């Protein structure tokens, strides 16, 4: 079954720490996205990609890097984590027509 898998499910790191969130999709989708979910703000777009090697900047990119290594894999990197990055992170994928977005189960990140 086509899916979007995120890892880890939960992560705790210290301020200034280095964190990588992983996302893999088996939907054969070209587009992948990273969002963060915060109460009162909803889902905010961090970065997205149209395909391997491509990266587009979203609406809240500060403090985040991303890399799309293959069609299946999209990584979100926090090189100097801060408490403001404590959030629930969702990865999603879509086909070229963008008629639906398939979400992963989320990664809950706590920066202490």
């Amino acid at each position, binding site marked *: 079954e086509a899916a979007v898998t995120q890892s880890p499910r939960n992560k705790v790191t210290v301020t200034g720490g280095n964190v990588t969130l992983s996302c893999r999709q088996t939907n054969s989708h070209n587009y992948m996205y990273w969002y963060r979910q915060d109460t009162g703000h909803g889902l905010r777009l961090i970065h997205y990609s149209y395909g391997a090697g491509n990266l587009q900047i979203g609406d809240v990119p500060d403090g985040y890097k991303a890399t799309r290594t293959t069609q299946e894999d999209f990584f979100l990197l926090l090189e100097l984590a801060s408490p403001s990055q404590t959030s629930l992170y969702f990865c999603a994928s879509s086909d070229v027509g963008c008629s639906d977005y398939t979400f*992963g189960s989320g990664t809950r990140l706590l920066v202490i």
Partner: protein
Amino acid sequence: GDSVTQKEGLVTLTEGLPVMLNCTYQTIYSNAFLFWYVHYLNESPRLLLKSSTDNKRTEHQGFHATLHKSSSSFHLQKSSAQLSDSALYYCALRNNNAPRFGAGTKLSVKP
């Protein structure tokens, strides 16, 4: 840039009453594609409804919405709320690039 407004952060209803969750949007593009996603606790957000056709009602799982481009609205409705409808609902807009989501409306249905 594109934006979506969901003015109600929390809607609390008694079971059996009608549901209406508001969604308005702003975009400079004419090819707006609007979505409603439902997010149950500890699950992934999933698609509930979508539309790009002006003034056409779209329905799924008892919910319905009509895209009105003249008022830039795509309100979600249901005739009778069920306890199982309690969830977080997101309205989203897509034009030429990545979708933008609203802040979400938490629907709480009480017995």
